[in-house]
């Protein structure tokens, strides 16, 4: 179970003040939250790296947290930014390991729904979301995605590029 929003906010405020014990707890809770946040939104083999990169970003940019605001929307904005960045870098992965689905914590459902990556994918045109999911998340090749969707290969590439760009612009609007 992940700590609630108020506890996380309190830990982050203390961490900005230099409290190492609070920071350690906050990073552990954030690690758990991010792992669940990214589940099924990126190739399972890439989750570890992405979670770690996001924690490093949290550390480097900790001054950008507004102590009067909730913590999770801030972490989610950083998480989305790193996620889109990593989708841009991924071309093809051939991993088909199984991974366990993380079960959502009921108390966090409202926040998770608001900041979810799925929602972000749902806000771009379907053709773009489909090919991003196929190529960047499931690891299909451009040719395979083209065959499955009936789009030409160059259209698949254009749709991935446009979709990622649109999602990147949506991070703060939604």
């Amino acid at each position: 179970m992940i700590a609630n929003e108020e506890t996380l906010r309190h830990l982050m405020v203390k961490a900005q003040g230099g409290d190492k014990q609070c920071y350690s707890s906050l990073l552990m809770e954030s690690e758990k939250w991010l792992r669940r946040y990214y589940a099924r939104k990126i190739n399972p083999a890439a989750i570890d790296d992405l979670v770690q990169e996001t924690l490093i970003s949290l550390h480097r940019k900790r001054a950008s947290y507004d102590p009067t605001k909730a913590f999770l929307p801030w972490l989610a904005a950083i998480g989305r930014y790193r996620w889109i960045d990593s989708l841009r870098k991924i071309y093809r992965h051939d991993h088909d390991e199984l991974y366990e689905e993380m079960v959502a914590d009921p108390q966090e459902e409202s926040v998770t729904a608001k900041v979810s990556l799925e929602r972000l994918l749902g806000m771009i045109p379907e053709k773009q979301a489909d090919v991003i999911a196929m190529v960047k998340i499931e690891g299909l090749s451009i040719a395979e995605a083209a065959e499955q969707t009936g789009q030409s290969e160059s259209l698949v590439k254009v749709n991935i590029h446009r979709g990622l760009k649109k999602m990147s612009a949506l991070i703060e609007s939604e």
Partner: protein
Amino acid sequence: MSEVANSLIDGLVDDLKPVKALRPSMGLAVTALLSVATMTAVATLMGVRSDLAMGMADEMFFLRSGILLMLGFATAFTVMNMARPGVGQLSRGWVWALAAASLFPITAGIMSIINTPPVEALRPSQGVECLTVSILSALAIGSGMTTWLRQGAPTSPERAGWLVGIASGALGAAAYNIFCPFNDIYYIGLWFTLPVIISAGLGRLAVPKLIRW
């Protein structure tokens, strides 16, 4: 939790030092200071328009200054808040300021259709000077804004680039406006709009690379 994650967390905790939370008001203060500095530079190096120096400025001067300053600061407010990310926090006040500012070029366009202006009304040589000084002022203001923004974590670098360009373009034009003696709508519609558009384009091209993290 994996060992790698554990050792990463230990490393980050070891590295922890107290930080002061970023305040967008500081970014706005930097923007305001640079705007005053460029206005002072224009007034010192080029002079102040004569009616303003006599304390009897034309009403068009007040309209133009007000619109440019509103556009500049409303946009700067949005972009400085982008330094602190958060889901669902985007402020859109700048859009209204931009819509109000576009009344100048729109009016000039409509008036040109009704009554084609003579080329003299556009004053090409003074216009180019207006454009050059406005863009140079915008570069100074935009550089300061970008430097401040780099401390933060803007999650939409392209949008931040456009907004830094629009804000600094409007404030750069407001600096030149202190000197510019012309009041007709054709001149303002063209030569005070171009710096904002060009600066927005420059911001979009240059700023995202500088603020990515």
